[in-house]
């Protein structure tokens, strides 16, 4: 029983990090079709934003709260820069966006190495997040609970934004039928740019959350990007709630497999499970229903 509770909590914790990393991708990959390999580097940029904010302010608590919006802005602006300079001309070649953004990722990583050094740096966690919360004899670390809450809050905000705001309606319209949205007077160009801003900004938030998990280094993003993409693949590109289910299921499954085997075998088993799952549902959990053949 004790093992079950800790493993499920571990899984939820892994899942919440995956969800934070994948939410932005669900928007940019799921909705726009751009395979943004630099998303991991936007996460890294968010983490270093938290580091710099902390260096300037000094106070750990204030800097954590402040760095969340700042990192959103920094990563979001990086995303807009990428969209305006390169991706804008590539929407009809979605596979090629992967390679272009991989180049961006290489450059950003090397830039971070040259600016911050190859060694990892630590961002101190605020005092109110240190130590565990005791419930029924189980100890849950507060940092992990905070990340879980942050992931759920980010998802709720994004889902509400897509459903109730006018920008959200424009995004959904553009995704579902671009020519029709255009003829209805929606500027799909500015909608694309804003969607990319929000998706990339979410990566920045994920980066801030990751500073609570340990030290950060220039290749922080590479560790998360593949799994985040797998979350979107399993979740399906139709709706972002697919990403939520996929993130937590993948988190719990991989925590469990890792507990019963080893971390290196677990990665292979999870991969095999995903390929097997795609045999049953090639489009992921939620698929956008269309009449197209592809």
């Amino acid at each position, binding site marked *: 029983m004790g093992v079950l509770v800790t493993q499920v909590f571990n899984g939820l914790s892994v899942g919440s990090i995956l969800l934070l990393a994948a939410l932005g991708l669900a928007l940019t990959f799921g909705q726009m079709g751009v395979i943004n390999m630099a998303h991991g580097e936007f996460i890294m940029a968010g983490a270093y934003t938290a580091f710099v904010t902390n260096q300037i302010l000094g106070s750990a608590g204030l800097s954590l709260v402040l760095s969340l919006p700042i990192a959103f802005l920094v990563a979001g602006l990086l995303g807009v820069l990428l969209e305006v300079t*390169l991706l804008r001309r590539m929407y009809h070649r979605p*596979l090629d966006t*992967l390679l272009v953004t991989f180049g*961006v990722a*290489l*450059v950003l990583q090397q830039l971070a190495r040259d600016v911050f050094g190859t060694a990892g740096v630590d961002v101190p966690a605020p005092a109110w997040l240190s130590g565990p919360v005791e419930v029924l004899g189980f100890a849950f670390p507060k940092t992990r609970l905070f990340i879980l809450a942050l992931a759920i809050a980010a998802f709720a905000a994004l889902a509400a934004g897509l459903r109730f705001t006018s920008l959200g309606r424009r995004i959904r319209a553009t995704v579902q039928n671009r020519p029709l949205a255009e003829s209805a007077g929606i500027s799909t160009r500015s909608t694309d740019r804003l969607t990319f801003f929000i998706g990339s900004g979410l990566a920045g938030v994920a980066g801030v959350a990751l500073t609570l998990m340990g030290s950060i280094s220039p290749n922080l993003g*590479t560790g998360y990007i593949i799994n985040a993409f797998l979350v979107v*693949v399993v979740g399906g590109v139709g709706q972002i709630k697919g990403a939520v289910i996929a993130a937590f299921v993948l988190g719990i499954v991989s925590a469990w497999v890792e507990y019963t085997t080893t971390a290196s075998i677990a990665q*292979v088993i999870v991969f095999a499970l995903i390929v097997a799952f795609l045999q049953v549902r090639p489009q992921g959990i939620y698929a956008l229903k269309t009449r197209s053949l*592809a």
Partner: protein
Amino acid sequence: MSTLLKSRWAVLAGFAIAALLLFVVAPAALSPFRLDLLGKYLCYAMVAVGIGLAWGRGGMLTLGQGVFFGIGAYLMAMHLKLADAGPGGTPDFMALISSDGVPGWWEPFRSGIVTIIAILVLPALVAGLLGLATFRRRVKGAYFAILSQALAAAFAILLIGNPTSTGGSTGLNNFRGFFGFNLYDPVNRQMLFFIASGVLLAMVALARQLMLSRYGELLVACRDAEERVRFLGYDPANVKTVAYMIAAFMAGIAGALFVPIVGIVSPNDVGIVPSIGFLIGVAIGGRTTLLGPVLGAIAVAWAGTTLSETIPSGWTYLQGFLFMLVIAFLPGGLASLGGAWSGLRTRLRKPPPPSPTPVDPAELTGVNV
């Protein structure tokens, strides 16, 4: 140029020139160290031939070629380590970290024949399984790219996580012999270079035959209009899987030759970054052409070594910018510049046609090189 490719004498002359360059000029002009480096580039070029087939002609973005390269490389490395240790012996690195002896699954690779068969079969088998699993269920192209990449990540993690049997992050190195030949002898190293050259030429010939065959036409058709191919009664899944398997087969052989030539294989040669790195040369050279991937891969590998020797971080920046600029602004690679040039020349020579610029069908299918 496409007529040049099809005329038998021109092709034979092309191969003769390439053979002359590789077998006579290169050994005479290059120092043994540079010849070894060129041999390494030839291995990358072999991977590029396969990628050109799967990605350029078949439209499958394979980001996991490092896995097949790695399977070939590690199989060969295991055999060489076992052969160095002598019959019944334990390789040196294994004896250092654990006293368990040789793992059971290593034992078959004491035999050179078994190793060679495994190198030829295993990569294609893995590719066949993944290919059928994704293409049969019509998993989207982007999903396939991500899955192949995840496979590369999982493979690298698996190698690093089992240091007692794979050497962990250091990998396998320090080989003394290659099927009975001393690897420290310059004559044998030159022989390895000749083997790599011969294999590369054979692969280019195979790729050319495939491109000109009915199968090659079908592959291009699958890339450009998969649904139409399906409506015509073909199964695109089989067509694509075969191309993917051939690419894996070539990468496996390249890996197996890479090990004795370079003398080390580690997870750094097979993970995500090297797997995507294989693609940049193909993209620069022209992904849909026959020779573009080969020349591109050799040029990029050469530029990488030269630049890394002078400015270490410069290569990462250059690689990044190459990916951005070539893929975004020159998707046809340098080969498309040649096509644009000859197109311009013919247009200048002839009066402009009355109808809108006719599209050369050879240019669309990319048969010209």
